[in-house]
């Protein structure tokens, strides 16, 4: 019970960090996506157990509460990204190398932006919201920096925690990671 409460509070704090702290940082640091980094790490470590997907639910809800887009958009985009990345990871990678982590990171960011933009576009078309996204040069510039910054962080985490990842990857079976 206490463990669950700590997990929930951690998710909320990380989401608030994303919304309030990261968004205020100078460019390009404001392109850090905490939830994407966590997603990639958990998918690589938990490719047998999928219960970490509840992380997606928690993060998404907090992001949706502060979003001008229709409620549920962030959660749905994260959910679809998680499913897609997990599927691709199962088919493409069998190890926890830096290459697979970097590729997963890039795929995750591209998929997330794709799903979010698609959902935002349909919501605007259906007149559910008056706020839309546009695929202009600013969008692609932000996407580029999102990939660069988050890739750097993922590779850094991989290098620092490589031995820990190896042991977790080998020993984890049915145990819940999250």
């Amino acid at each position, binding site marked *: 019970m206490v463990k669950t409460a700590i997990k929930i509070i951690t998710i909320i704090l990380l989401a608030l960090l994303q919304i309030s702290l990261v968004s*205020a940082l100078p460019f390009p640091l404001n392109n850090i996506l905490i939830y994407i980094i966590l997603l990639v790490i958990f998918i690589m470590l938990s490719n047998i157990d*999928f219960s970490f997907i509840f992380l997606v639910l928690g993060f998404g809800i907090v992001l949706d509460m502060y979003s001008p887009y229709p*409620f549920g958009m962030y959660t749905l985009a994260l959910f679809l990204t998680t499913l897609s990345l997990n599927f691709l990871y199962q088919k493409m990678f069998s190890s926890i190398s830096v290459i697979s982590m970097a590729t997963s990171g890039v795929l995750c960011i591209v998929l997330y932006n794709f799903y979010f933009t698609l959902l935002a576009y349909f919501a605007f078309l259906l007149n559910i919201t*008056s706020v839309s996204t546009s695929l202009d040069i600013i969008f692609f510039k932000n996407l580029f920096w999102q990939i660069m910054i988050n890739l750097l962080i993922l590779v850094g985490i991989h290098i620092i925690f490589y031995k820990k990842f190896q042991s977790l990857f080998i020993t984890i079976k049915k145990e819940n990671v999250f």
Partner: protein
Amino acid sequence: MTEQKGIKRHSIIVLAAVVLLVFFHFIGALKPVENLAIRIFSPVQNILFSTGNGIKGFYQDRLQRRNLVSENEILKDQIQKLTIENSQLKIFRDENDSLRKLMGFYEDNKLPHTTARIIAKDTANPNIYILNRGTRDNIKNGDPVVADEGFIIGKIISTDQDNSKCMLLTDNQSLIAATIQNGANTVGAVEGEYGLSIIMKYIPQNEEVKEGDIVITSGLENNIPKGLIIGHIEKVQTSQDQLFKEAYLAPLVNLEKISLVSVINQ
């Protein structure tokens, strides 16, 4: 096989939870919980956003020479004060006292307003600021958001009980009716461009417009009073084969540095 079942089971549970939450949100059942959560999170967000701004400020200061920066700030303050004074004198000269209800605004520059703090920016669109005041403080969609006593920076686009979202004038989807203080009070529309600049469009070709002219809100929109300063004209773009000319505006407020704003809620 067991793996697939596990993934399927968890995915279905999460998807069902998302659908239920969206449903409860749209019927309003989730509102009290959301409002309570936002009220609880607000102090934490104030601290986090201030910390982020502090880090950004420190980083920016290190890149600039301190003497030039402070001298620049002093000169900008003086320009802002003189611009406000100049703009107010022009409005006084142009208005008819006995026919206008809004003379109170011009005489003592007071409008009902609510002060709010910026606590976050939207993750997907950094031109949308999240404020810590909402419908509980009489804020509604379309209300103008101003900084530094009369510089309009954006409009409210959505509200909740304890927070609201402000879209900056520099956003592509921002549109506001404006007047140029050029003697002829030329009317046009001000739009944002890619989060970087503001452009005034639909200026008739025969109107005299020059660099330095001040652009204010025209008062033609419901919630937005006349006289809020948008910016000054930086560059005028004319083309003989076009019906209208365009003017690029420079805002008089640094949108990256503000953390405290006012929402005019008439």
